[in-house]
């Protein structure tokens, strides 16, 4: 069974840019059409990154808020990008920082999973993966035992797949410190995971 995935490109008057370099240069010139081009090119990717960083239990509206925040920061800071060809990594870094800030904010409020809209996450449309979704929602909840920074380090390394050097740089830490915190977080999370049969089962089934 295949489903057609719509490509949600906005035609509008997006700038015609064929490379990241020309896109960055256009953005730096203040070309508003380049912003739409950047959205068309990267919104889906950024959205995917946010999905992975936040987990399946996240309210879609919250995620969209964070998506907006990522692009607002990106447009404001694009002039600080040194390597114009490193646009994707630059956006990922903003994503990690935005999510880190959001998690820290929630922890400060000690209200980790409350949706800002008061609405439950929309999970009904994804029923075919209900079990895996529930298990992964639990997994992301377990990550809350980590501090905001450790969670960010852990998720950006294990789920987002950034290199250790990238993770260290994003969090302003040395590689050795990052590795140490990552190891500690991994041990703590693995311990919790093994106490949850559903997660153990998912890990066993998911690895084959």
């Amino acid at each position: 069974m295949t489903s057609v995935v719509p490509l949600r490109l906005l035609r509008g008057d997006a700038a015609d840019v064929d490379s990241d370099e020309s896109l960055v240069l256009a953005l730096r010139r203040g070309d508003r059409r380049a912003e739409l081009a950047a959205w068309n090119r990267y919104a889906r990717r950024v959205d995917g990154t946010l999905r992975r960083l936040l987990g399946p239990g996240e309210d879609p509206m919250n995620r969209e808020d964070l998506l907006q925040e990522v692009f607002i920061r990106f447009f404001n800071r694009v002039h600080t990008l040194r390597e114009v060809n490193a646009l994707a990594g630059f956006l990922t870094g903003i994503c990690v920082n935005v999510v880190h800030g959001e998690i820290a904010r929630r922890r400060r409020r000690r209200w980790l999973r409350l949706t800002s809209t008061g609405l439950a996450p929309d999970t009904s449309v994804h029923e075919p993966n209900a079990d895996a979704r529930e298990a992964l929602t639990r997994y992301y909840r377990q990550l809350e035992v980590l501090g905001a920074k450790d969670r960010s380090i852990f998720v950006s390394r294990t789920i987002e797949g950034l290199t250790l050097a990238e993770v260290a740089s994003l969090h302003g830490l040395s590689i050795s410190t990052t590795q140490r915190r990552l190891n500690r977080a991994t041990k703590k999370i693995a311990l919790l995971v093994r106490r949850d049969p559903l997660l153990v089962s998912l890990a066993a089934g998911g690895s084959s």
Partner: protein
Amino acid sequence: MSGPGPVRGESGSGGGDDEALVEALAQEARRLAAQDDRGGPAPAAWYRLARTRRERAGQIQTKHRRGSEGRSEGRSDRWTRPVTAGALAALVAGVGCLVVVGIAALGGRQASHGPATVATGGAATPVTTSAAATSIEPGLSFSVHGATVTRGEEIDVVGNSDAALRFSDGTDVGLDVGTRLAVTARDARGARLRLQSGRARFQVVHRPNAAWKVDAGPYLIEVTGTVFAVRWVEAEQTIEVAMESGSVRVSGPLLSDRMELRTGQRLVVRPAAGDVELDHLDQMGQTHQTDQNAGPGQTRTERTPEPSSPGPSAPPARTEGVRAAADEPTHREPLAGRGPVRTALALASPRAHLASPAGPSPGPDEDSGASTATTLVEPPPFEAPAPAERSEGAALESDGRDQGAHEGASKRAGWVSRRWAARVASGESQAVLADAEHVGFEATLAGADGADLTAFADAARYSGRPDLADRALLETRRRFPGTARAQAAAFLLGRAADDRGDAASGLAWLRRYLLEAPRGPFASEALGRQMIAVEKLRGAPAAAPLAAEYLRRFPNGTYLLRARALLLDR
């Protein structure tokens, strides 16, 4: 940008089993995120982004204008900084909230001192000016009595009196002092509430298609129509559910699936300690009588009935054995106003196997007088194990049941659970070894229940006693055959042998593990190590089929590069 990568740190680290487990879940998370991707954000998101930017630009311009009018140039620049402005806004908002909370708390105290307006369920709502009914069509509406609505639909009971939440369908939620609850979703069928901390008693009106859910920490309670109470202690990560009537289904850590609770049952789960208790109020008197008759130090053997199973979605609870009250941690005031814990029923949970640092080379076992070489038992030929066809889930299921029987036998043999697993998890491996030495290593190996024996093996590994660790793992396999513990022991034996350079023995154990648990949590590492061991013993061509299998099963595994290299060399 989003390319998944191996979990293992570039600088190398121990804890390969932890990393493999985490990586397996990370793969699932990436897979699910990819499936959820419906082509990216909706087009409207772009327009909302544009609107947000306009609004922010307008705010900054306004502040800038105010700053330039009333202040010097330097100061106005500072005021235009969004961060500073945001901090100021947060400060103002914080002061405002403190004032509001203070007024509310003062009001609460006044109310509690006055005539029983709150206790009567209060037509009057003197405590909270925010007790007004909230309504968003077409969902249920609710009103709050005696509590403070701090933000949106978050409710704090900050006064000295209990509070109540009343929904328009007649459902009533009683809140103890100090409770924090949020209404996170509502519709015509019910609502979803999150118990952040404290105790809440739910009287859910039974209606066709009613759907109520309560989140408490990592637990989810699904309700149709019933009366029950929930307590969640955030600091201790403990949930307690007491049923007065009807039924609910509870899911979360340590519970194998949605566990159904019926009238009169009480469930307490402490995931951090690995404890699950299930009391049955119907048997309270009988059990209590037994308690009184039990002599000091006696271990009771009565079992409470397992929760009824509604079908495949709610498998029955698995008994691990009954724990003597003396072994139970101090219990708090029970939800249903009953006496202390009487009978506990623990559900099996897989033991955590922590990361193993590379231990020193094995030496003679000074305590037992046996050397590692003589202690190790080679596994039989590869075709031997009967349970090879079972899935890991089945193995865990079996583990739960078999383990219960084995550990019941341990209790009958006089072994009292020492909860070593929690101590090992806290880094007290040396203390656990000392405790075991006090008991006697041989007595420990012969009598410890499954959890303690596994923890003992872990403690030995972490303390640089591979000889003891191997003996404990072998005992685990001998005494608990066919369980997940035994499967994990095979893997750990194989990894230990592999690490000390005994590739042949390691290979045999790893193969045994893969035969017994082909989809087990260590399958990725076991297959990767098997591949390398075969390469070492028989050369790259012999390892190539394993490399191909590894790439097929674990395309993002930690042995990815080696597997690719083996195939390229062929």
